[in-house]
């Protein structure tokens, strides 16, 4: 079919694979940063709490794109190292959304009723047992909606890697456009549809996780 411009899809899908891989890697890394920073900010020890607070405020107070440029262009000059565009992209995306995610972790843990901690202490659990088997399973349920929103933001954020010339789906679309200016509109419609499809799948996955986490509870 000519009207649908299906011939545009194969090159776009090639870039889409990179976008999806970048999204998946960054989500996993962001989750780790969010957990570490969120827990560290609730620590009683100042040398955990303060560096975590500084990390969160710096990454939430500046722009994702500025961070991406800083990590890709400035950091290698500063440390005299080589950094691939993919590594820089995963680092920037995961550090940025990890900072936002740490707030989700913090507020969810704070929302677990105090009686739960007290009961765990009364049962003579160690602090790590308390966290692992009592607090986190209950907090996890409350984290999911917040994480779900951040995942969509992260997916949208991956489009910025085009600006450090990583061949994601936006990059492929811009390349296609330079070959064939007349199908500009079709290229961008397909591009938007692909992002929307990916976002819908992520939303669906989070709903599934929410249902599973809620199973057996009221």
């Amino acid at each position, binding site marked *: 079919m000519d009207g649908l411009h299906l011939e545009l899809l194969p090159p776009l899908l090639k870039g889409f694979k990179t976008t999806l891989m970048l999204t998946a890697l960054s989500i996993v890394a962001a989750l780790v940063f969010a957990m570490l920073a969120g827990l560290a900010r609730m620590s009683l020890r100042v040398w955990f709490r303060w560096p975590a607070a500084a990390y969160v*405020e*710096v990454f939430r107070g500046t722009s994702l794109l500025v961070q991406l440029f800083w990590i890709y262009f400035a950091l290698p000059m500063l440390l005299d190292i080589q950094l691939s565009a993919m590594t820089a992209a995963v680092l920037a995306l995961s550090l940025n959304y990890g900072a936002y995610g740490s707030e989700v972790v913090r507020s969810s843990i704070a929302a677990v009723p105090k009686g739960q901690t007290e009961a765990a202490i009364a049962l003579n659990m160690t602090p790590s047992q308390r966290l692992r088997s009592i607090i986190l399973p209950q907090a996890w349920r409350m984290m999911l909606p917040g994480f779900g929103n951040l995942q969509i933001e992260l997916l949208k954020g*991956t489009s910025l890697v085009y600006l450090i010339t990583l061949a994601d789906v936006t990059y492929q679309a811009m390349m296609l456009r330079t070959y064939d200016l007349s199908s500009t509109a079709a290229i961008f419609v397909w591009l938007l549809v692909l992002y929307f499809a990916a976002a819908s799948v992520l939303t669906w996955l989070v709903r599934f996780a929410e249902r599973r986490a809620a199973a057996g509870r009221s």
Partner: protein
Amino acid sequence: MWKWEYVEKIMPKLLEAIPVAVGAALAGFTLAVLLGLPIALARRSRNRWLSAPVAAAAEFVRSTPLLVQLFVLVFVLPQSFGIRLSPFWAGVLGLGIHYSTYLSEVYRSGIEAVPKGQWEAAIALNFGKWRTWRRIVLPQSVPPTLPVMGNYLITMFKETPTLSAITVVELLMTAKIAGSASFRYVEAFTLVGLIFLLLSYPSALLVRLLEQRMQRREGRVTSR
């Protein structure tokens, strides 16, 4: 590695770019505030022919990247519709449309927080639809959302570097031009980061203060 003379050299140029970034954020925010309310109201409409398409369009805009939407505004609009915008106003339009979908959710939460009794009282007083919204619902639903709106203004300010992709010469673009001329990116990009931090962090603290003050006032009203 870090050269202070170079910092002195590029700092004036960076400071000159601040009004562009702040201006784009403020203009985009104004547009988002104006567009957000009709979107929220349309999504609440009982007429499915109005609510369903608006909801679908808003979800679509919200789930796709601002960067791609900006490209649509500067590449597709002139070619397919003959509408030509300057990069700055395309950026403002893109920011405004993108964030109007977020602000419509803010309006929605404010509207839903108005107690049911208020609606019932409006009916009991024989208020029409227009009068109910204008005199009862909106005056109670918008003020509590002001801190959240303030946070979105800050978020939009931090999104302005994305406009560099459509050649708006804001902070990041200025730094990139300065950096590529001398091949010194460390100072340029670090300064941009610092400027963003120095402008957005105090603003975020102000919003937090406003939020706390409003909560305290709310507490007084309900305890009376």
